[in-house]
């Protein structure tokens, strides 16, 4: 308990300092959350659910207003935040692995990850690789062996575009399994995970790549067999019988995290306030409830740790995309 006095002292000092120089940041008036897609999608959900918890925990003075700004897979909102909102300390923007994927592949023309402040992530949906119940493949190594023999032996269906996150998950696993000629692996892109899964269940495409929450319906009905989940450890609850890729000897991890960035040029105080808010939300009962109801898995990072994670992920995706010829 000897540590306590210096901290107290420091706290008192900061308080007097900030009292005399500038008030510590606290949001006043309207707080906005920008969802870079139409209502109903993942980013919209991130904004609305976090906004609600922020209100319940009294971390914002009034309400959090969700604004939808669709376009270019988040690019329109990113450009808006960079060019028009710099210095805005009351604006959160929803982001996910889709954001880092597009940044890595240079799809937000002339913009990069340094142009915004990465605040924190509040949960993740983990990638899965699944087949129909009638498929010959019983585990992930069997499927990978078939690909080793002939990269066109297994065709994958997913909800993201070619080169998007669902496609990359397959490639991350295949790369680790030692498969050469990654660009030859067929990936068919559908409008969303549901459509892709229907094709796999209907027996038209061999395997499904997507997130675990998407697959819940077909998993329960027994039509879909999940070969592996791309998480560090087995997932909790009802998903605990699904083996990870890691325990099958393929070191592939693919979290689709959900989090936020903020505009550039905000004060350190403001940034600290929102980083702390992310930590408070993640610890709260209210947020645990939201995560449980929506199948979000544990995943939390904030401030510096999150920023370096984002940059690492962008580097990884960039080099992978380069390897498979998606970008030059």
């Amino acid at each position, binding site marked *: 308990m000897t540590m306590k006095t210096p901290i107290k002292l420091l706290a008192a000092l900061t308080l007097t300092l900030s009292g005399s120089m500038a008030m510590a940041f606290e949001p006043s008036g309207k707080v906005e959350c920008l969802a870079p897609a139409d*209502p109903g999608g993942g980013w919209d959900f991130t904004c609305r659910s976090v906004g609600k918890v922020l209100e319940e925990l009294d971390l914002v003075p009034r309400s959090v207003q969700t604004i939808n700004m669709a*376009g270019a897979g988040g690019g329109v909102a990113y450009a808006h935040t960079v060019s028009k909102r710099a210095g805005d300390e009351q604006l959160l923007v929803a982001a996910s692995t889709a954001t880092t994927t597009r940044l890595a592949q240079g799809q937000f023309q002339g913009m990069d990850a340094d142009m915004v402040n990465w605040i924190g992530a509040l949960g993740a949906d983990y990638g899965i690789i699944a087949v129909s119940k009638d498929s010959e493949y019983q585990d992930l190594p069997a499927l990978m062996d078939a690909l080793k023999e002939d990269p066109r032996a297994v065709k994958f269906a997913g909800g993201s575009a070619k080169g998007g996150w669902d496609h990359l998950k397959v490639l991350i696993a295949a790369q680790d399994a030692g498969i050469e000629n990654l660009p030859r692996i067929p990936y068919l892109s559908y409008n969303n995970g549901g459509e892709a899964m229907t094709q796999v269940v209907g027996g038209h495409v061999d395997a499904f790549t997507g997130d675990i929450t998407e697959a819940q319906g077909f998993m329960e009905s027994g039509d879909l067999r999940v070969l592996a989940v791309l998480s560090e450890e087995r997932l909790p609850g009802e998903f605990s019988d699904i083996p990870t890729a890691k325990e099958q000897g393929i070191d592939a991890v693919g979290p689709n995290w959900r989090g936020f960035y903020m505009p550039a040029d905000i004060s350190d105080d403001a940034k600290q306030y929102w980083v702390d808010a992310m930590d408070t939300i993640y610890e709260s009962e209210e947020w645990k409830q939201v995560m449980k109801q929506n199948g979000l898995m544990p995943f939390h990072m904030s401030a510096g740790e999150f920023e370096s994670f984002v940059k690492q992920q962008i580097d990884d995706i960039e080099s992978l995309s380069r390897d498979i010829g998606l970008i030059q």
Partner: protein
Amino acid sequence: METLNYLLDGFGVALAPHNLMFALLGAFLGTLIGALPGLGPANGVAILIPLAFTLGLRPETALIMLTAVYAGAMYGGRISSILLNIPGDEPAMMTCLDGYPMAQKGKAAEALAISAVASFMGSLIATIGLILLAPLLARFALTFGAAEYFALFVLAFATLGGITGKNPVKTIMAAAIGLMIATVGIDNTGVQRYTFGVLELYEGVDFIITIVGLFAISELLFFIEARAGGGKSEIVINKLKLSWKEIVAILPTSFRGGVLGFIAGVLPGAGASLGSFISYTLEKKVLGRKGYFGEGDPRGVAAPEAGNNGASSGALVPMLTLGVPGSGTTAVLLALLISLNITPGPLMFTQNADIVWGVIAALLIGNFLLLLLNIPLVGIFVKLLSVPPMYLLPIVTMVAFVGIYSISNSAFDLYFMVAFGVGGYFLRKLEIPLVPIILGLLLGPEMEKNLRHALDIADGDWTVLWNSGLAIGLWSVAILGLILPYLVGPMLRRRMKAGTETRD
């Protein structure tokens, strides 16, 4: 049994007070839109889509309101057919044949009431058909792979002529325009097409903006051109004297009309106009000399109304189960579904069960509301027919702008909407139909994607496209759909025309 449980849950959704209120509002506005000559159901739904966004409705509420508008427009079309001899929309054309003579004989109120009952019957039968058929077809949809979907889309395009086909060249032009607009954006493989480095174009052109621009804004321009003058002089209708016996007399006719209409609706491309035409012609054949068709026979009013309302519910079947619209209005509803992040198809019946079954239940409830609106309250609509457009126009304009802006808060979308409105105005002046444009825009990307997928799966072997019985069947129907309108179409139109002329 499962279906029944889903349906009961659906009633739970549809009977929630706010959903019921919006169903009523939709039914009212729909009937009004149907009644105004020139404003068809597709335009009506397009005009009211922004209202759903303006009010920030939840997906199921928005869909319930707009399907009620759709059903309402089908009811409303008959009002001006009967009173003014001007069909409120194309499917109501056949209703003029016996409806107007009835009105001339001083039996306008009876004609309106009979047609409302027939509409109710037709719609009821078709909705029951939808409830029975849709889940079966949804399960069947699992057998559709990429090749089969591609053939299905070809079929949808091949039958376009049946939907709008006065001038085949213009129909093809319109579909091509739609396909061209659909190529804008980042394609399936990550290549940019016609984006010119504009971020807003990366995801392509938004369906809803195109639809509201092409239909609603161009409609406004037409109204302005017509000098937005005064309304029609007020119409007085007689007091209703309708016996139970007279209603019973038209029930068999309504039943036959409803069944035929439903079948016509389910077939892609046929649509409501064909439904009402077939029902009327069949009725004439069945009753032969016993009727006095063309001179104000109540059954001549009942048959086409049951037919077109049956077809309108029938057209929902392929739209909900396969994502392929059976008519122009269902194409507009499909665009709405997509913009609400709901993908039609087999999965929707389980994943979005509350929405699908809520909408179906709302269709049943809406029917009762519409019957109520259309018999005791029909006077209101007759009065509204004479409201000058100068009061309606500013409201519609405001709703369109606020609604589109509230989707993504971007002024860019508004410019686009206005540009499409002006484009739509000129296209309509050139008599180029708008529905094929929408179909091209909606179905083009899907068709392209499925072709790519089919070839990807087969490692580039083209024969995969006709490798299954189902695919061959779809190709055959597509070829039939392409040829038949040229053989049967002129004949049908001649008959329709002959029918209209003999009456005068």
